[in-house]
């Protein structure tokens, strides 16, 4: 017998889903609302929700005090660069793990993932020293490299699971058809894995965009991305909640828009192969 879902049950499920959704979204909503308040209203007790004097003053001040575009540009280069570089390294790595596995492949995958379990601060000191030695402290290139390395295990893992779904016979057919290894990856594997690669790319871009630990510790003025831009408003000069919120909103707006437009792709990619 098919499972019947009563209207009541559906209603309750919908309510629960919305409640959880709103709870998760609330901090972001609150940040956006606060960015339109005056500093006084931002810290008023009891807090005001919607009925306050809407103002764009905070955005104007933030714009005046710091060069938003420069931070934005840094964020785009660091997130984009680390993602592209990561893919270039991860596609061949995942290819070999998925199609010519050795006895140790599973162990290597786990070992790669285990590096994500180490607290980042544990390697801050050595990495900081290496950055000084190489003269790449506070450079975008340095951050591209370090963020790529931080996210590489996730990219390899995701691509590996997508590639596993591709039947090996198709690649063998390509080999019979005269494709070199490069042709095989370029013309057959990559186009077939596009949904997977796209969602990996998006997720990695978002992770790199939001990464704060390394971007804050390894940059000063030149290469600072939007995370540093937000941090600069939680300054010791005093708390400016409204301005901090305006800065945060400006920092998360691009990624929010990107996420909104690519949500279909993201969901499809993340559940790829789960139901088949």
């Amino acid at each position, binding site marked *: 017998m098919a499972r019947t879902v009563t209207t009541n049950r559906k209603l309750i499920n919908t309510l629960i889903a919305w409640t959880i959704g709103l709870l998760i979204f609330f901090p972001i909503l609150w940040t956006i609302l606060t960015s339109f308040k005056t500093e006084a209203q931002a810290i008023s007790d009891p807090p005001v929700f919607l009925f306050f004097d809407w103002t764009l003053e905070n955005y104007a001040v933030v714009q005046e005090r710091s060069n938003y575009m420069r931070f934005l540009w840094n964020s785009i280069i660091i997130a984009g660069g680390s993602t592209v570089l990561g893919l270039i390294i991860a596609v061949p790595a995942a290819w070999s793990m998925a199609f010519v596995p050795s006895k140790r492949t599973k162990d290597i995958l786990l070992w790669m993932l285990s590096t994500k379990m180490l607290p980042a601060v544990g390697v801050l000191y050595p990495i900081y020293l290496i950055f000084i030695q190489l003269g790449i402290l506070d450079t975008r290139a340095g951050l591209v490299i370090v963020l790529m390395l931080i996210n590489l295990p996730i990219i390899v893992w995701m691509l590996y699971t997508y590639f596993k779904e591709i*039947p090996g*016979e*198709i690649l*063998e*057919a*390509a*080999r*019979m*058809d*005269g*494709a*070199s290894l490069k*042709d095989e990856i370029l*013309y*057959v594997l990559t*186009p*077939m894995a*596009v949904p997977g690669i796209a969602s990996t790319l998006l997720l990695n871009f978002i992770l790199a965009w939001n990464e704060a630990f390394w971007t804050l510790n390894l940059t000063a003025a030149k290469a600072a991305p939007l995370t540093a831009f937000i941090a600069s408003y939680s300054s010791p000069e005093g708390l400016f909640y409204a301005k901090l919120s305006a800065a945060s909103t400006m920092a998360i707006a691009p990624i929010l828009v990107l996420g909104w437009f690519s949500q279909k792709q993201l969901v499809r990619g993340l559940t790829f192969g789960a139901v088949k």
Partner: protein
Amino acid sequence: MGRIQLKQVRKTFGKVEVIPPLDLEINDGEFVVFVGPSGCGKSTLLRLIAGLEDTTSGTIEIDGKDATGLPPAKRGLAMVFQSYALYPHMTVRKNIAFPMKMAKMPQEEQDRRIAQAAAALNLTDYLDRRPGQLSGGQRQRVAIGRAIVREPSAFLFDEPLSNLDAALRVGMRMEISELHKKLATTMVYVTHDQVEAMTMADKIVVLQAGVIEQVGSPLELYRTPRNKFVAGFIGSPKMNLMEGPEATKHGAHTIGIRPEHIDISKTEGAWQGTVGIAEHLGSDTFIHVHGIPGCDPLTIRAGGDIDVRHGDTVHLTPQLEHLHRFDAQGLRIQ
């Protein structure tokens, strides 16, 4: 040209020897079928010829040249896979063009060959579709088209029909046979279905556990199976194998008699038994008879109009000129 010679070819996976040293010769223009139960190494053998697997030892020669170390593409062979292995993101046209694109063939030549292959395989109207929009039979034809355009020295087929339904399978079987007549190119075909082997092959190679049991034309295998395994494997329904006093009487350890070589009567005969199940196919009737010593049940192929029912007593007489005799090792006694 398409002459393939295997000399002492051996393949092991780790410690498991799937193909002990083996010699085989495939002549130019021949349709050779590798047949055997699943896991007998027939696909591995094909993949060794294709170059998708490396030989552990021994040499593979194609047209007299040593091809053992050559990568698949350099061997001049084309392969059709069981799952068709079409490129799902490319149209039929691009799928067929892919090997030519890899060979950097001029565009006009590519177009000419695509048109030719599409016409031959009834694919002209589907050239701009993707594999996902095609039926199983059409996909199979695209896979064959992709193989044809390369004008290979030999075609390799790895169980190409096993994903098709029964009706389509018969149709495709004939199409492949016709293609072979038309192109006169060497074809090596792997199947576990002895009917496919019998109907298509010039030469059948029967394999068991990586060992070649017999090589010969379909009728040679049917008429003079070299051992009990081949006797039981070739022919449908299977040959009846009898041991015991009846075999000793003919000076053998085991005797074999095909279902179509036994006469059935309701009144008299050499053996007497009871009808178990009678399968009425219309054209034929397969009757399983119980109670005959040394072989239970014994299968008989009778005419479609015979009237026998479960529980009837019948008398059977083997046609002695079609009797096969085997010794204790299972080898044929001449």
